[in-house]
């Protein structure tokens, strides 16, 4: 009897263990698929304007299943063809958390839901950007999202839940109201095509004509263009997730497609840098500015030579009292004054003292 009971228990365990593993794995897979499902697009997606025209572009969010609390938007575009005049919040996000900045080739703003009890769900306007068409384009130019665009959602921890972005394509013809005609009211722009999320792996038809001069302040043009990001093509291997690091300048390293440009943004005091994966696909970066003790998040976005992008994130904690790598310490203004003064005195003594003596 005892033997039979033992046999039943063993058999039960043999069935239960793989079943549990399978179910847990499936739940995990479901979650993996459900979490990263928010996308941003620009509306209209295709714009035809004359030089001098002023027009609005709406940043539209589709939150998917996420409960979005905030979105940090960074747009990049060709500053020789377009000038951003203003950026403000859209109707879905009543809070401007960090004021809009328009600069040469960039526009950014951080917007938030009313409060955490009323997160944003659904589809609607995140922000509205007003542009001026500057010059005729030979081919359409794009307005797109920079890699450090971030969307935060309740229940998703520090993950960037943004997985897909859709740029806008702008064609500017030669003549128009140069000098700034009245702004075209929002919503009356010609929308020549709908703005679908681009299917996985498909590169948008927008010609990527951006030049490196567009990259300030974020030194990258690698807007996330994939409709469905996969984390397979870019990996962060160190630091591993949620570990404590003893160095204030920890080396962040990983793998990507050989030759891919990897944009690394450290979210604490934001630092963004672009590195290139070597022939073996390895890349690494050591922050030049020591990180403060406490938690830090890293977002790495790889743009492979074909132009497609993938994003992955990790987080780690810099321990209290972490050591800093040896770094040169710059002098102070006061030191400079003293050195200049000593130099002047030496010059004077070199000229005057011999004169006086002789």
């Amino acid at each position, binding site marked *: 009897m005892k033997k039979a009971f033992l046999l039943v228990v063993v058999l039960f365990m043999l069935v239960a263990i793989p079943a549990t593993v399978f179910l847990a794995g499936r739940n995990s897979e479901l979650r993996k698929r459900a979490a990263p499902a928010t996308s941003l697009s620009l509306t209209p997606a295709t714009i035809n304007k004359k030089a001098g025209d002023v027009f609005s572009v709406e940043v539209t969010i589709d939150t998917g299943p996420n409960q979005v609390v905030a979105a940090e938007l960074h747009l990049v575009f060709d500053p020789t063809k377009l000038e951003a005049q203003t950026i403000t919040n859209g109707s879905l996000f009543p809070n401007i*958390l960090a004021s809009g900045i328009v600069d040469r080739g960039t526009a950014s703003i*951080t917007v938030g839901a009313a409060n955490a009890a009323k997160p944003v769900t659904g589809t609607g306007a995140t922000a509205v950007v007003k542009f001026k068409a500057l010059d005729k384009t030979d081919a359409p130019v794009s307005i797109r999202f920079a890699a450090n665009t971030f969307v935060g959602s309740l229940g998703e921890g520090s993950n960037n839940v943004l997985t897909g972005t859709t740029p806008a394509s702008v064609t500017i013809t030669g003549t128009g109201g140069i000098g700034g005609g009245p702004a075209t009211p929002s919503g009356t722009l010609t929308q020549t095509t709908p703005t679908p999320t681009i299917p996985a792996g498909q590169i948008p038809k927008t010609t990527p004509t951006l030049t490196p001069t567009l990259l300030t302040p974020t030194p990258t043009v690698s807007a996330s263009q994939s409709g469905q990001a996969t984390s397979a093509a870019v990996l962060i291997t160190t630091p591993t997730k949620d570990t404590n690091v003893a160095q204030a300048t920890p080396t962040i390293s990983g793998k990507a497609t050989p030759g891919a440009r990897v944009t690394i943004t450290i979210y604490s*005091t934001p630092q963004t840098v672009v590195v290139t994966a070597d022939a073996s696909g390895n890349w690494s970066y050591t922050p030049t500015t020591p990180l403060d003790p406490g938690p830090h998040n890293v977002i790495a976005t790889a743009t492979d030579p074909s132009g497609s992008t993938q994003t992955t994130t990790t987080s780690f904690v810099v321990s209290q009292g972490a050591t800093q790598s040896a770094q040169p310490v710059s002098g102070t203004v006061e030191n400079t004054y003293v050195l200049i003064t000593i130099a002047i005195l030496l010059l004077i003594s070199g000229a005057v003292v011999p004169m006086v003596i002789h």
Partner: protein
Amino acid sequence: MTNFLEQNTSPKLTTIVSTLALLAFLPLLLFGVYQAVIIVSRATGTPANIVIDATNVLEPIRTDFYHAFAQGGEESKDMLSPVVNEVRALNPQLIRLDHLYDHYDVVGRSGNDLTFNFSKLDSAVDTVLATGAKPLLALSFMPSAIARGGKIIDPPNNWDEWSLVVQRTIEHYSGKSGKNLNGIYYEVWNEPDLDQFGSWKLSGDKNYLTLYRYAATGASRAQNVNYFLLGGPATTGLYQNWILALVLSGNRLDFLSWHSYLSDPKRFNDDQRNLISWLLPYPNYTLIPKLITEFGFTGNKSAGYGSMYAAAHTAATIRQLISGRPTYAFSFQPVDGPNQGASGDGWGLITHEDNGKKKKPRYFVYNFLDSMAGNRLALSGEGTWVTGFSTIQNGTIRVMLTNFDSGGNHVETVPITWSNLEPGTYTYRERFLLGRDVTLKETVTGNSLIKQVYMPSQSVAILELTRQP
């Protein structure tokens, strides 16, 4: 000269005299170089060339967030009582009180038990309520009855007693059977990082996180209370490690607070931007209220607080926070402490009653700026010294300009262009804070109007443009 020296002095003496002369001139030379650098750096700023697009309407702005004030504790009494009418006229939304437990004799001891007497603090809170504001109560400092060695900046002998103090305070003011106040902010301590207030750290014996944790425990034990908010860390500046330590501490955290004494108004915008970037990875905390519970251009007493300097600094700071701002920014402080100079070098907006309760220029800036209510309009061309913003409400376009020079007396004549106007006749009003107020008629035949406005040093102006029917 050379012959005379050669004949009458030894070469050694000449060398010594020359060296001494050079050394004597050294401070003068240093000072000269320093001044030259200041002059050169000041001259490198950009003058403003303001352009307002009358058709580019942006988000609505809030004009209540700067109607918040923090009263310090230079006297152990209800300091606002003598100026309650003057403070009420400021339309305050929130008034912060600190020194709760060392100035108002709240906590005592009878044997092993603590005793509580809120009568003196109640008077101060009632004065705040009489101004039309709600109190923000900074839970500071440690009651001497429970503090280690009786020192009010040290930890208590028994942390549970600190929890009890916080619990009883919340029950008294937010309790439905107490003062029955709703939506009260309770801020844990005041400037914990400052030596004067205990030099608390984020670890060790004087760990702010421990202080906060036991305060949160007390808050959680408060019974039969209305909605209230608990937060901190009320540090002397916005420090990432303090903010994130509190966020990650796992304690109840309903709002974040810090103090900002910054001469450069643009740094208030930088702080807001930094804070949001730190909080974005923590979605549960990204949207909680953020309070600058004290701000000014310096934490030291200064004659600037008695002049237009402070008014212009406040206006320039509000401009920096008009889009992307904290929930409230508390000006420090409504009324001077005693024994201040007649020039008004205390932090107050109003001089102490011993100095006649005189209103300083900064007092007038808050209500002056309220007329800017409306939707923000696109404004470009701000300069190094002259900054501003524009709004539109009921067809009237307003432009707030301030010329704030933190280190000197810069003056500027500013070109202002209103573009995309409808042709017609407009009423143009130009009024300066505590200065001229003129109204003119302007005819716009094209679609723009250009004016030149002289901005004296440390000045604040509002320009209004209304199309006549």
